[in-house]
C-alpha cells in the first residue's frame, strides 16, 4: 500500500512538498484554508478578477504563476487531492501516523495519515500600541491581502507602521495602486538597518530591489520612529502620534493604520503534533525544533515560514526538502538534498541579516504604558498583565490563566510575544525564562453546529 501523506497548507512550501511526493508516485492530500492554492504571499484573487500577475505580484510574478500552474496541473491530473477552504483543527498522533480533525465546507471530518507535512506559514508579528484596538487598525498582511485579493484599500488615508521587508513592500504596492499612504513609520533606526547589510549581501539582488522600493516611497518613509498612540474616535483611527528619529513629536492624520514587525511562525498544529521548540534570539520568538530538512518528530515534517522565517523563496526550498526527507524515510528514491541545503543556508544568512536590520522593538514594548490594550480579543491592558505577573509569577501559562491574555479568539497569536516580553521585564527575567503558551485544540474555531451535525 502506498503511504498516506497529508500536507497542511498550499502555499509555496506545501506546493513544493507536494511536487516532490507526486514526482515519486505518491498521492498526497493537500489541505488548505484558501479557495485556491498559493498561500498568502502568492494569494490569488477569486475567479473573475482581471489584474495581471505582474500587477499583483510585481517582480515575483514569474514565481507566483509557476507555483499556481504547478499545483493546478497536479490537481487536474488527479495526482493529489486538494481540500480547499478546509482547516485542520486538531491532530492525534500514534506510532504509525495519526489523524487530523478537519472543518471545511461539508462540516467536520477526519483524515488519517502515515506521515504529516505541516506548512502552515506565518502571520504578522504585531505589538500593541496605545489605541490599536480601534476598528480600522489592521495588520500589514491584512493591508496587502485586501489589495491583492479584493482590490480594496483599508481606508482613505493609511499609516503603515512597524519594521521589516513587508513594510516597504506593502507601502509601495499601495502607492502604486493609487491608495493614499500618509506615512510609513519604521521603528528600526537607520544605523541598525545598515548593521544588517553584511549578512543581507547574501542576496544582493533582493537587497537592491528593497532599497529601490524604499527610495520611491520618498518623504513618506521615516526610519527610527517611535509609536506613541493611535488616536481614535468610535469610528476608528483619527491620527497616529509618533516621534521621529530625533525625538520630535509628530502627528499624522489618518483613518486606517496597518501594523507589522516581520512575521510570527504559525506553529499551533505542529505543536499539537508533538514537535519541540527552541527560543530564537534572532527572531525573538519560539520556533519549532527540526533537522535542516524539516524532520521534527518521527513521521512529522515542517516546512516554510511555520518552521523558519525565510520568506517565499525559502519556503519553496524547505517544502521541497521536507518532501524529499519524507520520501527518503519511506525508503523511496529521493534526490540528493545537498544542493538545496546549500541554497537554504544562504537564505538563512540573508534572513538573519533582515532580522538584525529590522528588529523587534523590545525596549518600546517594555515601556508600554499600563493603559495600553495588550490583548485586543478581550480588551486586557498591559497593567492588568503586570498585576497578574505579580500574583502568579513570571510564567507565560500562569500569567494567561490569571489575566486571560492569550485566552481569547486569536489564542495568543497576536499577543503572546508581547505578553512574554512584558512579563519578563516586569519580573526582571529573560523572555525565554517565561516559557511559551501551550497550544490548545481546536487551533481554529469550529462552530458547535458543525460538530453537532456530524
Amino acid at each position: 500500500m502506498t503511504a498516506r501523506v497529508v500536507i497542511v497548507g498550499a502555499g509555496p512550501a506545501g506546493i513544493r512538498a507536494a511536487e516532490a511526493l507526486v514526482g515519486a508516485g505518491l498521492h498526497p492530500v493537500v489541505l488548505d484554508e484558501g479557495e485556491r492554492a498559493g498561500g498568502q504571499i502568492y494569494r490569488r484573487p477569486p475567479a473573475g478578477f482581471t489584474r495581471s500577475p505582474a500587477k499583483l505580484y510585481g517582480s515575483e510574478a514569474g514565481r507566483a504563476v509557476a507555483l499556481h500552474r504547478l499545483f493546478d496541473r497536479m490537481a487536474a491530473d488527479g495526482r493529489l487531492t486538494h481540500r480547499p477552504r478546509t482547516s485542520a483543527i486538531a491532530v492525534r498522533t500514534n506510532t504509525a501516523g495519526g489523524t487530523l480533525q478537519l472543518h471545511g465546507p461539508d462540516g467536520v471530518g477526519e483524515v488519517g495519515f502515515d506521515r504529516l507535512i505541516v506548512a502552515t506559514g506565518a502571520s504578522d508579528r504585531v505589538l500593541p500600541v496605545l489605541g490599536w484596538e480601534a476598528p480600522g487598525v489592521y495588520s500589514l498582511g491584512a493591508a496587502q491581502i485586501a489589495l491583492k485579493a479584493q482590490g480594496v484599500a483599508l481606508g482613505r488615508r493609511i499609516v503603515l507602521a512597524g519594521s521589516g521587508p513587508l513594510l516597504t513592500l506593502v507601502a509601495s504596492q499601495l502607492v502604486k495602486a493609487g491608495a493614499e499612504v500618509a506615512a510609513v513609520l519604521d521603528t528600526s533606526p537607520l544605523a541598525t538597518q545598515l548593521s544588517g547589510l553584511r549578512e543581507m549581501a547574501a542576496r544582493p539582488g533582493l537587497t537592491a530591489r528593497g532599497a529601490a522600493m524604499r527610495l520611491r516611497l520618498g518623504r513618506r518613509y521615516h526610519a527610527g520612529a517611535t509609536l506613541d498612540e493611535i488616536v481614535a474616535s468610535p469610528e476608528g483611527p483619527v491620527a497616529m502620534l509618533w516621534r521621529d528619529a530625533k525625538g520630535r513629536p509628530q502627528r499624522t492624520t489618518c483613518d486606517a493604520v496597518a501594523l507589522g514587525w516581520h512575521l510570527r511562525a504559525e506553529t499551533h498544529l505542529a505543536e499539537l503534533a508533538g514537535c519541540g521548540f527552541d527560543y530564537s534570539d534572532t527572531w525573538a520568538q519560539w520556533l519549532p525544533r527540526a533537522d535542516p530538512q524539516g524532520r521534527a518528530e518521527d513521521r512529522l515534517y515542517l516546512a516554510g515560514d511555520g518552521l523558519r522565517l525565510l520568506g517565499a523563496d525559502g519556503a519553496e526550498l524547505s517544502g521541497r526538502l521536507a518532501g524529499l526527507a519524507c520520501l527518503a524515510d519511506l525508503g523511496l528514491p529521493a534526490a540528493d538534498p545537498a544542493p538545496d541545503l546549500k541554497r537554504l543556508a544562504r537564505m538563512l544568512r540573508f534572513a538573519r541579516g533582515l532580522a538584525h536590520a529590522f528588529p523587534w522593538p523590545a525596549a518600546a514594548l517594555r515601556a508600554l504604558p499600563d493603559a495600553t490594550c495588550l490583548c485586543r480579543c478581550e480588551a486586557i491592558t498591559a497593567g492588568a498583565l503586570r498585576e497578574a505577573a505579580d500574583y502568579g509569577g513570571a510564567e507565560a501559562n500562569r500569567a494567561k490563566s490569571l489575566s486571560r491574555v492569550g485566552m481569547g479568539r486569536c489564542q495568543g497569536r497576536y499577543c503572546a510575544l508581547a505578553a512574554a516580553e512584558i512579563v519578563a521585564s516586569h519580573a526582571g527575567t529573560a523572555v525565554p525564562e517565561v516559557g511559551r503558551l501551550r497550544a490548545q485544540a481546536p487551533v481554529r474555531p469550529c462552530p458547535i453546529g458543525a460538530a453537532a451535525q456530524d
Partner: protein
Amino acid sequence: MSARLVRLAEADRPLLAFRLDGRAATALDGDTVLTAMLTAGRDLRQAEFGSGTRAGFCLMGACQDCWVWTEGGGRLRACSTPLVEGMALLTRAPDTWP
C-alpha cells in the same frame, strides 16, 4: 458615515444583492463577506469586551476578529467567506439568539 474600505481596482464585476442589518445593500461578485460589509458600512460587529465595534484585523483567518452573525442565527468568518447573493448579515447578534 461613509464606508470603511475603498475600492482601488477590479470594480467591473457583476453586482450582488445582500442584506445588512435588515437593509438592502449591494456588493460585487467575488467580494468576501468582510469586503461587502465594509464597503457598505463601517463595522463587522460589536466588541464583546468593551463598548466599541470591530472591523477585522488580519484578513487571513488567523485572528478570528471578524466572525459575524447572519439573520438565521448562524455565524461565519467574514474574511474567508465569499459573499453569496441574498446573504442576510448582521453587525449585532440577532434578537432571537438565546
